[in-house]
């Protein structure tokens, strides 16, 4: 099936009243999640994940994907109107977006952010559609040794470029892998670290762990922050940008799209990093760089396009390799597994309706977001007037019932609470829990492929250097380690980009 025929089949699958409604629901939920500070796409998707279990796989994924890219749209609203980033990828938009709003240009800033997001989101879906099928075909010929090195490479890249200090990130990755070993051994079915607890034989509940680590800890931290917000309210008629604004924004949107798409495929905090790189690039090539920080439209257009372009490209490693590049896509992976769908190279051939349906829903979702977001901006901003304790109460109830509903197990509620406390404590000390979650997701395949490779080769480690795919990946792994070693030797702490 070629891409266009696949897409046509995808639209056929999606264009039913029910599916479009769920797509709309996901987009709206995502925008709300993006608008509300302290409730990013990851926490939002995690909290709503159990509610999608009652639906079929395609519909559940449409909703979750809608939350993912919808939150990227929504995050810019609070950045521009209140200087509060709704989610981490919108931090950089605060700088010039809010300055534009203060100068009475909130409307054009919102409009440019929305148009840039739409353009970048759409282009990245086209890229996903074009790149995913051939990459999946290549992956089909890859054996366990190459797959093991690929997993290792993903974890190392994550360790080197993730937002936190590398040592802390590696501790989180190793802990994630360690927690992933709890449950029945994949080869012998012997229980490991279950302490006779039946609820642990299937491993620690991913949903309970993710909701605890991100949702509960986020609420505990937000209760401590407790800040009052005063949004700037734009009028609908002010939304139309000037022709000069559009001309000025076109270049940054194009460049931001390319940066976001390229970085979106790399594991780690790519959606955040891409916005910083886009901003830095625009500032460097600007004719009047002194305007940056004082309301430059390029400072809004570039980063907003970059963060939305990552949403499509971040799906490529997930759908073709089964590797979540960022933690939000780990939630999508978990949803697929719950529905009995294994993401990876076989996904396109075994579940074409899901793959192409998801892509078609992303096209529809982007249009929905563009049409709905601007007229509804006033309503979304008013959501911020809801007192946080009320909001937290609703979120906590949904979390507890969601976790309980998966296996009707109170044990999972305790797991959620325990990881909530762990998440709260480690985040206080700047440990990023996202690598923990990604390692937990990848751990099982890492172990299976390692043990399978050693069994195939009778314990000969040279199997990891046999075959062209394994060799290429091994060279990439070595280059990465050497480069990072040189970087540390030269005194560069990490590849992190800092906010000025």
């Amino acid at each position: 099936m070629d891409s266009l025929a696949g897409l046509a089949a995808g639209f056929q699958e999606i264009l039913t009243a029910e599916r479009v409604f769920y797509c709309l629901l996901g987009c709206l939920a995502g925008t709300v999640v993006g608008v509300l500070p302290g409730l990013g796409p990851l926490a939002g998707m995690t909290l709503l994940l159990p509610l999608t279990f009652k639906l079929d796989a395609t519909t559940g994924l449409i909703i979750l994907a809608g939350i993912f890219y919808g939150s990227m749209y929504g995050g810019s609203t609070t950045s521009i109107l209140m200087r509060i980033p709704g989610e981490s990828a919108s931090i950089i938009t605060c700088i010039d977006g809010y300055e534009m709003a203060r100068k009475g240009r909130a409307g054009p800033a919102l409009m440019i952010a929305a148009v840039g997001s739409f353009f970048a989101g759409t282009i990245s879906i086209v890229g996903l559609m074009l790149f995913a099928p051939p990459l999946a075909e290549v992956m089909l010929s890859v054996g366990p040794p190459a797959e093991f090195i690929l997993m290792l490479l993903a974890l190392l890249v994550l360790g080197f470029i993730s937002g936190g200090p590398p040592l802390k990130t590696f501790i989180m990755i190793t802990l994630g892998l360690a927690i992933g070993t709890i449950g029945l051994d994949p080869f012998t079915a012997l229980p490991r670290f279950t302490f006779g607890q039946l609820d642990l034989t299937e491993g620690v509940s991913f949903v309970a762990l993710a909701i605890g680590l991100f949702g509960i800890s986020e609420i505990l931290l937000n209760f401590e922050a407790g800040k009052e917000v005063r949004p700037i309210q734009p009028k609908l008629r002010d939304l139309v940008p000037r022709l000069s604004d559009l001309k000025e924004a076109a270049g940054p949107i194009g460049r931001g799209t390319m940066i976001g798409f390229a970085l979106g495929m790399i594991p780690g905090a790519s959606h955040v990093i891409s916005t910083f790189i886009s901003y830095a690039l625009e500032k460097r090539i600007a004719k009047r760089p002194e305007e940056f920080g004082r309301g430059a439209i390029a400072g809004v257009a570039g980063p907003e396009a970059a963060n939305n372009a990552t949403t499509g490209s971040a799906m490529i490693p997930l759908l073709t390799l089964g590797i979540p590049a960022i933690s939000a896509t780990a939630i999508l992976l978990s949803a697929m597994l719950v529905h009995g769908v294994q993401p990876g190279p076989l996904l396109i051939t075994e579940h074409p309706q899901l793959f192409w349906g998801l892509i078609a829903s992303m096209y529809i979702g982007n249009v929905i977001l563009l049409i709905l977001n601007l007229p509804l901006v006033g309503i979304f901003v008013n959501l911020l007037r809801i007192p946080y304790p009320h909001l937290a109460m609703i979120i906590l109830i949904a979390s507890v019932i969601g976790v309980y509903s998966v296996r009707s197990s109170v044990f999972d509620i305790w797991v959620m609470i325990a990881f909530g406390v762990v998440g709260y404590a480690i985040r206080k000390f700047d440990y990023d829990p996202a690598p923990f979650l990604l390692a937990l997701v990848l751990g099982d395949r890492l172990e299976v492929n390692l043990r399978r490779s050693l069994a195939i080769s009778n314990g000969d480690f040279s199997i990891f250097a046999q075959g062209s795919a394994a060799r290429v990946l091994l060279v990439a792994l070595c280059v990465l380690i050497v480069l990072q070693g040189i970087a540390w030797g030269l005194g560069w702490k990490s590849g992190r980009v800092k906010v000025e």
Partner: protein
Amino acid sequence: MNTAQDGGTARTARVAVTRHCGELAIAALTSAIGLAMAIGATALPYGTLDQPGPAFLPSALGVLLIVLGLTRALSCVRSRTGPAAAERIALLHPRAVITLASIVWLGLAFERFGAEITLFVFALISMRWLAGRTWFASVVVAAAVALTTVFLFANLLGVTLPSSWPLLRS
């Protein structure tokens, strides 16, 4: 985002530790988890190199965690002086403690007392002590939240929830 640097948190938090102590504690805990894992793995078959057993990866991860924990502890000890190490991190803000206690209540009571009673008490705590509403408003909202939630999840979404009605009837 939420280290205890903002004034409100630092003023109202009951417990605060220095960054140095906290970092050391996390490093020690990391090594302890690694040690427990390595020891726990000894009860499982290691297998051979051509047929690795269930203990193969856990024991390797256990050792790695011990090393990473010790490395982190060492870097903490090296940088124990200076303003960053002395920075005080506020923990257990009263509102965070109340929230945590209310979630623990959910865990304790959910199956024992049923969804309606558990959610009513949870919402009452949230409204009275976190949102600061009057007793009357808190009771009314809590009752509405409990009944609406059960109706929404159990009746509309088909989630199986433990019911409070048998307990209330008896």
